[in-house]
């Protein structure tokens, strides 16, 4: 398996430094931090406290105890949203304000809450996926219990104006949760400066281990725990602490903070090369914002070429697409849909997620494959022929709606 990995939004490999920090916790410093009668327990507690500080520093949290370790951002998001709703059990007509391009780990809990009478209000987005602040403010009322808006989108990389949202939230006295999973280590986030009350972190998106994440919970924010049993983590999240994971997350956070500037510069230079190369292919459309986007993200619709077939043409390159044909649900990307990008183009879309291990040479290889692949696939595409004849393929009346499953 010598693939070129361009799917760093899905997950990242461990940083060597992170692995080195974790190794001693498996067989030597293996204690349970809750064991308070011996050295093993004490050592584990020390390691956890240290990691808590590292994570707090990454996001500018003043008090390390405001960091709650979880099993990942899915849990952090669920805890924020459900925990907040349950804490206001007696209040009626509750609503939560969010945007339609949140990760499923925000949208699915919100869907669950709707069954329990908590409404979801979607603030408007522009065609790049940036939230409309005026519309956001207008959606907030006295029954709004939470605003949940991501820092960066995992498909199109669009960045949200987090601090502006924080200000609006604070003005309205509503807690502000942000899913910062994709942004951390690439965008500077400071919970104080940005008025963030709850912030979700996942280690495996920033060169740390899978199965560990954190939730920043500002003092005074009340959450009903999802996982109970012993009252770990200030009573908000019980369960034996995942010491190796926590140590790994701590180290990953330290590196993310330490190396952010040089890492971003590296990503931007690789991305420029990739974007320049792709711009030589005609009929290619950029999804998402031209500037306000993650430095490691590009997302293009290669018109008239179905995404999966193009990924197949880039054999040996790990890519992901907005095409239904790569999803088991047979639905094209809901993120692209939410931006009113036509289904046809969603099926033609490919996400590029750059990361630490990528090189200029790899970009050259990928560009070569893309150019050849697009050319070959368009030579087979009836839509390309039609387009060249001047027909607008999107607005043709297609003879039959193809049945997806039989």
């Amino acid at each position, binding site marked *: 398996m010598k693939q070129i990995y361009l799917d760093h939004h899905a997950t990242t490999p461990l940083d060597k430094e992170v692995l080195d920090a974790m190794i001693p916790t498996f067989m030597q410093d293996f204690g349970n931090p809750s064991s308070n009668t011996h050295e093993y327990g004490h050592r584990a507690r020390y390691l956890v406290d240290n990691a808590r500080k590292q994570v707090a520093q990454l996001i500018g949290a003043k008090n390390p105890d405001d960091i709650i370790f979880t099993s990942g951002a899915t849990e952090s998001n669920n805890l924020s949203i459900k925990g907040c709703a349950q804490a206001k059990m007696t209040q009626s007509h509750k609503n939560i304000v969010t945007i339609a391009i949140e990760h499923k780990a925000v949208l699915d809990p919100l869907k669950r809450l709707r069954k329990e009478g908590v409404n979801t209000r979607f603030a408007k987005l522009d065609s790049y996926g940036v939230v409309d602040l005026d519309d956001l403010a207008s959606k907030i009322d006295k029954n709004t219990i939470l605003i949940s808006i991501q820092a960066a989108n995992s498909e199109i990389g669009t960045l949200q104006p987090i601090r502006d949202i924080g200000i609006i939230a604070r003005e309205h006295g509503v807690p502000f949760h942000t899913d910062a999973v994709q942004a951390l280590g690439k965008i500077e986030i400071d919970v104080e400066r940005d008025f963030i009350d709850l912030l979700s972190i996942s280690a495996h998106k920033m060169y740390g281990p899978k199965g560990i994440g954190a939730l920043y919970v500002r003092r005074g924010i009340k959450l009903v725990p999802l996982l109970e049993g012993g009252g770990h983590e200030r009573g908000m999240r019980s369960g034996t602490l995942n010491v190796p994971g926590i140590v790994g997350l701590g180290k990953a956070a330290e590196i993310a903070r330490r190396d952010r500037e040089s890492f971003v510069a590296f990503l931007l230079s690789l991305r420029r090369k990739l974007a320049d190369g792709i711009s030589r292919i005609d009929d290619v459309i950029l999804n998402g914002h031209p500037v306000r986007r993650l430095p490691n993200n590009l997302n293009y619709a290669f018109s*008239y*070429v*179905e*995404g*999966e*077939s193009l*990924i*197949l043409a880039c*054999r040996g390159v790990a890519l992901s697409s907005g*095409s*239904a*044909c*790569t999803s*088991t649900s*047979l639905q*094209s990307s809901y993120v692209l849909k939410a931006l009113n990008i*036509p*289904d*046809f183009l969603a*099926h033609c879309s490919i996400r590029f997620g750059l990361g630490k291990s990528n090189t200029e040479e790899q970009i050259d290889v990928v560009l070569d494959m893309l150019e050849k692949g697009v050319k070959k696939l368009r*030579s*087979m*595409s*009836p*839509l*390309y*022929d039609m387009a060249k004849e001047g027909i607008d*393929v*999107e607005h043709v009346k*297609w*003879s*039959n*709606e*193809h*049945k*997806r*499953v*039989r």
Partner: protein
Amino acid sequence: MDIWEEYTEKVLDHYENPRNVGIVQGANGVGVVGNPACGDVMKLTIRVEKGVIVDAKFKTFGCGAAIATSSMVTEMVKGKKVEEALVLSNKAVMDALGGLPKVKRHCSVLAEDALKAAIDDYMSKSKK
């Protein structure tokens, strides 16, 4: 499913070296099925002489499985009588490819539909 691991060698071969790409010169049957909004469109052109499909070519917008089934169906119908081609099932095309991943079965339906549409077109023209 993993698009590389779940495709058979035959599917990948037909995707990488598709047979009969293009438009048949002097075609007397054309079928276009699918919808770009659903992610696949297939155009099948055939030339029928004396009740026999003497040539067939395709153009397809779609995933690897859609391209491979398109390619395979053109191979399978060439030389067949129209009546024989009409009973060619999507299952037969899949079998010829060594099978398709479950979530890709609908692609073989596309090929069957395109074939039926092209033959329909030929028949309605030949009736006139």
